[in-house]
């Protein structure tokens, strides 16, 4: 459009005194009126020299003198009717009140922005965005002086080391990566159970291991102060226990914590040494529940801690199963959601059964790879990264595991099923609802390690009863469940 366009048809040019509106408002009015049908050029503006020049260029100059404090209304239209409508619209547009609108909060798009707006002394950042983006979010929190629970997986170990070093420098803790379980001052985060508050603090490199330990302590009437997850790789040589050492020091300084339990898989030897030295230097007694071929199982570690506390070891909750007809030559088929629980089952079963094969084997030569239907004694960890790519964890989505149970039954291989069911926050709201019918349909002897508490949203006893009614033997202790399954097989062997 050219400013020199000559106005077609009829014109209206007037000046008004005593009317002021700012230039932005007037430009809006001009545009509004210019959009009316039959209207040509429009200039509604204060009569400044610049605007008078513009009006002249449009062929709409006012007659006579104009002053800058006058409002110039200059427009052209195709006919008198459109012109009159346009002039009337100028008046209504000038009189219109702007809708004040609603004040809108702008949500924070990063952890850093959210922390900047937070009016709280101590905050915990919980990061579960996809792995490639997780480091930046975690780094935000550390830079702002706050601890992080990094749930995301797929974080390279060198980034984990860098974050943990930065956290140490900042005097905060990086829990993770791939940290699924934590409990801080009574708030359960990720996959965790509703346990009573108490004096035992956990440093856990294993999520389901920590859940087993806290649930057994709860069953014994002993509560938990905090569960500080450190990520499964923390005690590797590459990471060197950076978060474990910080977590131990923090629990040592915590008034609520009177005993510390360190839950992990076997650490790298050099790391084990430095952790032991650090633990020995603390005021608070440190127990360990480290799963290895020669070490006690998690339940035994809990029992040792209870005796140290002077607490009687209770009869761990259980429900009887109906399995009394185990065929000769039956094999152990472990179908686990928790990696540490699967490890514990294999560690207990291996001395009895000999080699147990797995997708997460104790020895590389026992690897079944992707063959979940391998014959013989097999324990599958359905929570392994290779099986959770593109789907939810088996603690949330049971589909893959239920399909495997059906496939074992269909294969005709005589077997005893050993499964874990992990209750608590974040887990399947009613796992027995799908598992009980699946076990009934499979028709195989079944043993379930049911990890949870009465206070969990799913209720331990409600789930236990449902599974027991379906014929499964149910144990609060995974070690006890494993030994029961071995006994079933052993009875037939014997």
């Amino acid at each position, binding site marked *: 459009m050219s*400013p020199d*366009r000559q106005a077609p048809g009829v014109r209206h040019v007037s000046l008004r005194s005593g009317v002021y509106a700012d230039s*932005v*408002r007037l*430009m*809006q009015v001009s*545009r509004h009126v210019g959009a009316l049908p039959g209207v040509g*050029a429009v200039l509604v*503006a204060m009569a400044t020299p*610049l*605007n008078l*020049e*513009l009006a002249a*260029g449009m062929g709409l100059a006012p007659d006579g003198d104009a002053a800058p404090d006058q409002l110039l209304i200059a427009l052209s239209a195709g006919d008198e009717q459109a012109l009159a409508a346009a002039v009337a619209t100028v008046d209504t547009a000038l009189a219109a009140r*702007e*809708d*004040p609108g609603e*004040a809108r*909060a702008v*949500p*924070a*798009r*990063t952890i*850093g*922005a*959210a*922390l900047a*707006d*937070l009016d*709280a*002394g*101590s*905050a*915990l950042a*919980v990061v*579960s965005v*996809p792995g*490639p*983006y997780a*480091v*930046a979010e975690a780094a935000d*929190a550390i*830079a702002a002086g706050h*601890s992080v629970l990094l749930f995301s997986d797929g974080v390279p170990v060198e*980034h984990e080391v860098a974050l943990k070093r930065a956290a140490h420098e900042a005097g*905060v*803790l990086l829990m993770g990566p791939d940290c699924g379980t934590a409990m*801080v*001052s009574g*708030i359960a*985060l990720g996959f965790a159970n509703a346990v009573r508050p108490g004096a035992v603090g956990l440093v856990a490199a294993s999520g389901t291991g920590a859940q087993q330990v806290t649930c057994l302590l709860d069953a014994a009437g002993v509560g938990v*102060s*905090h569960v500080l997850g450190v990520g499964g790789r923390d005690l590797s040589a590459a990471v060197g226990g950076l978060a474990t050492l*910080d977590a131990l*020091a*923090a*629990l040592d*300084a915590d008034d609520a*914590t009177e005993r510390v339990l360190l839950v992990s898989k076997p650490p790298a030897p050099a790391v084990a040494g430095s952790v032991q030295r650090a633990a020995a230097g603390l005021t608070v007694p440190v127990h360990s529940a480290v799963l290895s071929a020669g070490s006690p199982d998690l339940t035994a570690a809990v029992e040792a801690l209870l005796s140290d506390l002077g607490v009687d070891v209770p009869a761990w909750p259980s429900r009887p199963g109906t399995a009394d007809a185990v065929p000769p030559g039956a094999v152990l088929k472990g179908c686990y959601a928790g990696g540490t629980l699967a490890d514990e089952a294999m560690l207990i079963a291996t001395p009895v059964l000999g080699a147990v094969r797995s997708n997460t084997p104790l020895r590389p030569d026992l690897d079944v790879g992707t063959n979940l239907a391998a014959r013989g004694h097999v324990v599958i960890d359905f929570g392994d990264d290779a099986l959770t790519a593109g789907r939810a964890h088996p603690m949330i989505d049971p589909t893959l595991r239920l399909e495997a149970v059906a496939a074992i039954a269909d294969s005709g291989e005589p077997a005893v099923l050993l499964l874990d069911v992990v209750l608590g*926050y974040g887990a399947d709201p009613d796992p027995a609802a799908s598992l009980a019918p699946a076990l009934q349909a499979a028709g195989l002897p079944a043993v379930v390690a049911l990890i949870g508490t009465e206070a969990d949203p799913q209720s331990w006893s409600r789930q236990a009863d449902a599974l027991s009614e379906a014929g499964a033997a149910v144990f609060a202790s995974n070690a006890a469940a494993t030994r029961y399954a071995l006994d079933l097989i052993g009875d037939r062997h014997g």
Partner: protein
Amino acid sequence: MGEPLGGLLSAPPAIVAAGVEAFSAAARGQGAAVTDVAWRPPAFGDPADLTQLALDPRRAAANRTAVERVLAAGSLLTDVRPAREVLGLPDRMLLHAGPPLTWEAASGPMRGALLGACIFEGWASGPADAERILAAGEIALEPCHHYRAVGPMAGVTSPSMWLWCLADPVHGGQAFSTLNEGLGKVLRYGAFDAEVQARLGWMRDVLGPVLQRAVARRAGDPVDVRAILAQMLQMGDEGHNRNRAGSLLTLRELSPSIVEVDAPAADIAAVLRFIGGNEHFFLNLGMPTAKLAMDAARDVPGATMVTVLARNGTDFGVQTAGTGDRWFTAPADTPVGLFLGGYGPDDANPDIGDSAIMETYGVGGFAMAAAPAIVRFVGGTVPDALATTERMYQLTLAENPAMQIPVLGFRGAPTGIDVVQVARTGWLPQINTGMAGRVAGTGQVGAGLVQPPQRCFEQALAALAAESRAAR
């Protein structure tokens, strides 16, 4: 020693969560105070680059150093002198806005301004002659930014033009800008006709010398330009598209000294009338004020803060504190807004001018909440203006305590754009701007809002990550 882990174990912590909503819900169900982040994947950038910068141990301290220099920088009006003297600008050289540019690539308003400057300097007898010498490469073209100068719109600066000379007493920097010509058909919007030439001649012969002598009279008590910028934010200006209060404050500061200059009363009156009649007179003082602050933050290795946003009418250019004088450029977008008289969107040239230095400094579009009128250029409401500033806080490293926004409870303006935050939030910096006609000689056609092309920030991010890797 304080509490372990900053008090994390002393009481249920406030939780800030990004990612899986079920975790937030579970924590909330236990009575925890949970703030959910509206997280989304970064708008651009290789995740490995973002991670590299997030983990660069230099970055936090470097950004703090950079932005603290920005906040500390002062701006005193020390002199008014011709560009030839103060910049050593030789004959047959012109400065222009934005990143480096050739005549061939120059847009209409830039060409118009270059033509007009050649005529003004007497290097060409008229537009055709000027076009000939420019096309023949007889006139050297350099960005204002390469000479510590900033120019609004085309930003064309020639040796005979008088410049505001500003000094940062804290860091010792200097910055320069031409005298503002007013609105409408003016050189910086690409107009070059006789009226433009006459005004430039008067500015050279009367306005510049009078201002020089007036400023000299204030030698012991130089005008604190940063203080004017701070005041005008509390008077409805944002320092880029609205400079009304700032221009009047400047007039108030300078008029006694102007009146005392030994010059014909008619000249004094003309100078006062000219300043009083130009609502953007302050812009050319605000811009070098911002330039002083951003130059103070140059060359901080590891810093990911933007030091320059500038456009030449063809390309948009970005520089950062961590990458020195390197330009990251991409084709400039065209502003959206309202038009003068009969002009419309087809008449607008792509984004042009060094004036985005105001946003780089944290005012202009970043202080939109201080001047809600501006947001109406794009049909927005007062809450839109507030939301714009709120978004900019998430892109920036600090709040400038000297530049307060009354409606936000006198919160400091969001200052120091972090390239990493631009990528992670997906929000591009908000710039308020004038619009030049795309045809050389037209002048101003409107005003509105614009954003930099994302491509500039993509390049800057990649370069910062590469520098970070090389520094290890």
